[in-house]
Structures are given as structure tokens and as C-alpha cells.
């Protein structure tokens, strides 16, 4: 239940830069996901919000109040960690109660709140066990209960699902989203998994090299990427990015020729096409390639085409089958083409 503002936040350790000039306004009750590869600065940014790291520059505010000099334990944020970080010597009950005890909540109240939180994550029957006696999913739920038990101003979740297997991850994802909506607590969630980001977020903050690349709703990030990094990071399989050249409204790259494109003049341009915006059609003129691999998954077949020196991913019909090196022609949805400046990586609109 707090608004979080980051203004010009930087973090460096001597010459090593962690985070550069982050400006971000997180609304009350919003769920914002920091998304990026490892080392992009997303965890560092979150740790600065938690108060576990001091920013080298800039301001962090919660509900308008500057938090830079407020100690982590006085910030009223609760954090969930990748490694669960349950206290191994305490039972699950004692783990969940720990933050209440530290904040001197009355004893009778403590017991009620612990049981409530445990019920919310369906851990009621495991309260007297030690963390070592629980499975990974149960431990993660215990960590979640410890975070929600005191109804903090802000939830911070640092890759909470990455130690779980795929099936459990999906179930926990839904549970986290449900809890966040139910409790209406402002949440920052860090992940490198774009599926998690897309499914959970109200807004996604894509980070790379310590800087924010783009902020937007999942739909905006997917449909309207700001640069090649965002385009290539979101989507599974990711967007095809083919460097080429434009001249007189025509884009050319080995095996590809597109007429009447939006880019004018003569320059080096990178074409971006999502695999689902391509159609395998006999006699289509946009792209010529040879079959490199076919991967049927049941509901869809992924086709990998060798086009010039690049591999190009196409989402084909589930019945599609082909032989190796068989020539294919592909048509693109002309209103779903993206062009980027090859030099800077920025989108050309």
C-alpha cells in the first residue's frame, strides 16, 4: 500500500556499474516486474528499494517520503528470496512469526496472524516442521507466508520461482498473482523469465546493462518493443532479427526482399518479425529459405529456416511437416513488421 518512486538512481562499486540512472514510478497496489538477463541490475535495483544496498546517487521515495537513509528493517518491506532464506533452526511456525516478533506484535495476535498467513498458502498442517523437512514448493510457500504475515507496505520478490520445476512454477505463479490482488500490496518482482513477466505484471520494466530499456504493460512490451534488445528478449521463440539494408522503400537482406516499407532513405536497418507473423505459402515473395529443422510440439510446429547466413524461426500449422533442405517461401504480415536502426538498435517508427 505504497507508491514507490525512483529518481536518478545509480549504483556503482568503484568503476563497476550496477545500475545507471533509473527513473521509475510504481503506483500503489501495482505489480511491476523487473525483467532482464543476469547482471542487468534488476536485483540491485530491488535491493536498493529494500534498503539492503545504498544507492550511489538518486532518491528512493515511498509514499513521497525519502527512504535513502532509512534502514532496511524500518522500511516495512517484505522480501521473498530465490533460495527461500528460511531460518533453518526454526520451525515453519517460528519462521512465519519472526517478523511479527521483531515488530513486537502482541503474542495472541501473533498466533492468529501466523495461522491466517499459513492457511492462505495452504501450509497449515506443516507449521511444526523444520524447513529441511519440506519440499521446494512448500518452502517457497512458507517464505511467501513469512512475507505476507505482517501485511507490509511493499512486497519484493527476487526470482522466487526459479528453483522450482516447471509445473510447480506455473501453479505458484498463479498463487502469487492471486495473493497480490487479494492483499492489494504494491509488489516488485524480479525475474529473467519472460513468461513469468508477461503473465504476472501490470507493467514490465525491461533492464539491460544496468539501464532501463523499456517500461510498459505486457501488451505494449510485446507489440511495441522499443529496441532490438527488448524485441529479442520477449517472446518464445523470440523475434527474428535480420540485419539488412534499405534503399528507396525496399528492404533487402539475403533471401528477403520487402517493398513499400516505412523506412525512408538509404541506411543499415534490422528487420524484426515474430515467428507467429510468418506464413509458409507456396509462391510467397517476402522470404526464401531452406528447411533447417522441424519441431512439432502438438499444438504448433516450429519451423527453422536457413535464410542466407541466419536461422529464422517460423510458427507453422501443427500439421506442417517438411524434409531437410527443402526450399520454402514465406509471407509476412505487413502490418506486423518492425524496423530497427542497426547501429543503435533503436526502433524506427
Amino acid at each position, binding site marked *: 500500500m505504497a507508491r514507490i518512486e525512483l529518481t536518478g538512481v545509480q549504483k556503482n562499486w568503484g568503476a563497476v556499474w550496477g545500475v545507471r540512472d533509473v527513473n521509475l514510478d510504481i503506483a500503489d497496489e501495482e505489480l511491476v516486474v523487473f525483467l532482464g538477463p543476469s547482471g542487468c541490475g534488476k536485483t540491485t535495483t530491488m535491493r536498493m528499494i529494500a534498503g539492503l544496498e545504498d544507492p550511489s546517487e538518486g532518491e528512493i521515495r515511498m509514499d513521497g517520503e525519502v527512504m535513502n537513509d532509512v534502514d532496511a*528493517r*524500518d*522500511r516495512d*518491506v517484505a522480501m521473498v*528470496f530465490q533460495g527461500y*532464506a528460511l531460518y533453518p*533452526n526454526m520451525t515453519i511456525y517460528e519462521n512465519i512469526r519472526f517478523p511479527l516478533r*521483531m515488530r513486537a506484535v502482541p503474542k495472541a495476535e501473533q498466533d492468529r496472524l501466523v495461522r491466517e498467513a499459513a492457511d492462505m498458502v495452504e501450509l497449515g498442517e506443516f507449521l511444526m516442521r523444520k524447513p529441511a523437512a519440506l519440499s521446494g514448493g512448500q518452502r517457497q510457500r512458507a517464505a511467501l507466508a513469512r512475507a505476507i504475515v505482517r501485511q507490509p507496505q511493499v512486497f519484493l520478490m527476487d526470482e522466487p520461482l526459479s528453483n522450482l520445476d516447471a509445473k510447480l512454477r506455473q501453479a505458484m505463479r498463479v498463487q502469487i498473482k492471486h495473493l497480490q490482488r487479494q492483499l492489494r500490496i504494491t509488489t516488485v518482482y524480479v525475474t529473467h523469465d519472460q513468461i513469468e513477466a508477461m503473465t504476472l505484471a501490470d507493467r514490465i520494466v525491461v533492464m539491460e546493462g544496468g539501464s532501463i530499456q523499456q517500461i510498459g504493460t505486457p501488451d505494449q512490451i510485446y507489440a511495441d518493443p522499443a529496441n532490438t534488445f527488448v524485441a529479442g528478449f520477449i517472446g518464445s521463440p523470440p523475434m527474428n532479427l535480420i540485419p539488412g539494408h534499405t534503399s528507396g522503400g525496399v528492404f533487402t537482406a539475403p533471401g528477403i526482399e520487402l517493398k513499400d516499407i516505412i523506412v525512408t532513405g538509404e541506411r543499415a536497418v534490422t528487420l524484426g518479425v515474430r515467428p507467429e507473423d510468418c506464413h509458409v505459402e507456396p509462391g510467397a515473395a517476402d522470404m526464401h529459405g531452406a528447411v533447417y529443422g522441424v519441431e512439432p510440439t502438438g499444438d504448433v510446429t516450429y519451423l527453422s529456416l536457413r535464410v542466407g547466413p541466419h536461422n529464422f524461426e517460423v510458427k507453422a500449422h501443427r500439421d506442417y511437416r517438411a524434409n531437410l533442405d527443402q526450399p520454402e517461401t514465406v509471407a509476412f504480415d505487413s502490418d506486423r513488421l518492425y524496423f530497427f536502426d542497426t547501429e543503435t538498435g533503436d526502433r524506427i517508427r
Partner: protein
Amino acid sequence: MASQRRRRGESLFIRYIILVSWGLFCLAPVVWFLSIGFRPRTEIITPQPIYWPTFSLDAWHMIWSDWPMAQYLRNSVLAIIGSVVIDLILAIPAAYALARYRFRGREDIGFYILSTRMMAPAIVAIPIFFLFRNMGLLDTIWALMLIYAAINLSVVTWIIRSYMMDIPTELEDAARTDGASDLRILWEIIIPAILPGIITAAVIAMIFAINEFLFTLLIASTPNAYTLSVALANFTGGSDGVIYNAIALVAFLAFVPVFLVVVAIQKHLSRGLTLGAVKG
């Protein structure tokens, strides 16, 4: 198949032979001083070997009635426990700082602490004697506690530090965001998590302390502060000559408690002795 099985059986047999021989080899001194301790003095000094000695409690009675053995034992126990308590009180916060806080010269300070262990004790023996004399602590078990604590502090700090470094920092971050102060984190999270390490360090300190001889001899001049290790020396001089069976029994008394503790915690002990060289 059958021959393979036989070969495996043979190799297992050979392994047992080697282990049993090694065990007997290690146990031999213990058996030897027990056998000396419980035979009459005359049987010890005969030149002919005696394969089946007479069982005798002469020495046992002697060490308890002619010497204040209970007092020596009490001194040893108090000095050792006191020194271990001092070590833990000083070493745990120091180890935490060395393991977790980032400050200039952290590694240098850590190494400096360890380097106190590298000095030959005789070098500081005389200064320490004068130091304790000026403090009026000569011939007291307080002095023994302090000197044992000083000798072991470096090793205890390093062992505890190595255990602390293995604790994920996430645990402390979690406690901090949960609202715990540094002292709370140390007391409620870190110490319980490294309890095996603390016990190991304490036992290693105990073993060093019970074997300490030089400084004890220097500080203790009457039964007031004599410990078992110095008491042993009492049986070598004097008008009675060397009283071997008494020496054997006192050595055994000093050996048994340490042996029992080591057996109880041997799983942790090997780790503690590597001083964090191999991180788990």
C-alpha cells in the same frame, strides 16, 4: 561372475585387515599406559619383560591420596572452560565482522589474527611472566584462563569465520527486512545455524588447552594453579624418582574426557580442522 564376487570379497577382506591393524597401532599406546598404570611399581622397573603383569591399584590410590589430584583436575577443568568461554565471547563477534562486513584491511586483520599462532611460544614466555606478575595473577587459574584463551583465540576465530562464510547472505537479508538488528541476526539466526562450528572450535580449543604445558609451568608455582599436564611433571623429579605408573594414570585421566568429546563430534571435527580451506 563368481570369480568377480570372490575378488570383491578379497579386496574387502584386505581393506579390513589394513583398518584393523591401523586401529590396533593407534590404540597400542593407550593399552600400554593403562597396563603400566595398573601394575605394581616393582614390575615396571624390572629389565625382563612381564607378559601377564599383576593388577594393582597402588598408583591409583597414590595419585588421589598423596597428591591433590582432585584440585589439579578442578584447575584444569575451570581453566579450560573459562578460556573457551572467553574465546567464544570474543571470537564470535570478531568472526562475524571478518566474515561479513566489508572494510579496508579485512583480510590483513584476519591474517594478523591467525599469525599470532605462528610465533614460537617461548619468545613471549618471559614478557608474559612479568605481565602476570605485575597484575598479581601469578599462580592463579585466572591467569591460566587468560593465557589459554589468548593462545586459542586465533584458531577459534578462524574456524567460526569459515562456518559463517558458508551461510547464505540471503538469510541475513531476510532477517534484516523482517526487522531484526545486527545483534539479533547474530544471536537468533547466525549462531544457531553454525552451532556445529562453534562446538568444533570449542573442542579444538579444549584439546590445545588441556595439553598446554609451557605457560602453565611458568604461571603455576603451587597446587593452587597446577593442572593435570603440569602435575605429570611432579612425578618425574623428587626423592621417589620417576613414578611411571602414576604418570600413566594421570595421562589417562587427561586423555579420557578429550577422547570422549572427540568421538562425539568427530563428524564436525575434520571440517573444523581444515579451517575453511575447502568450502562446503
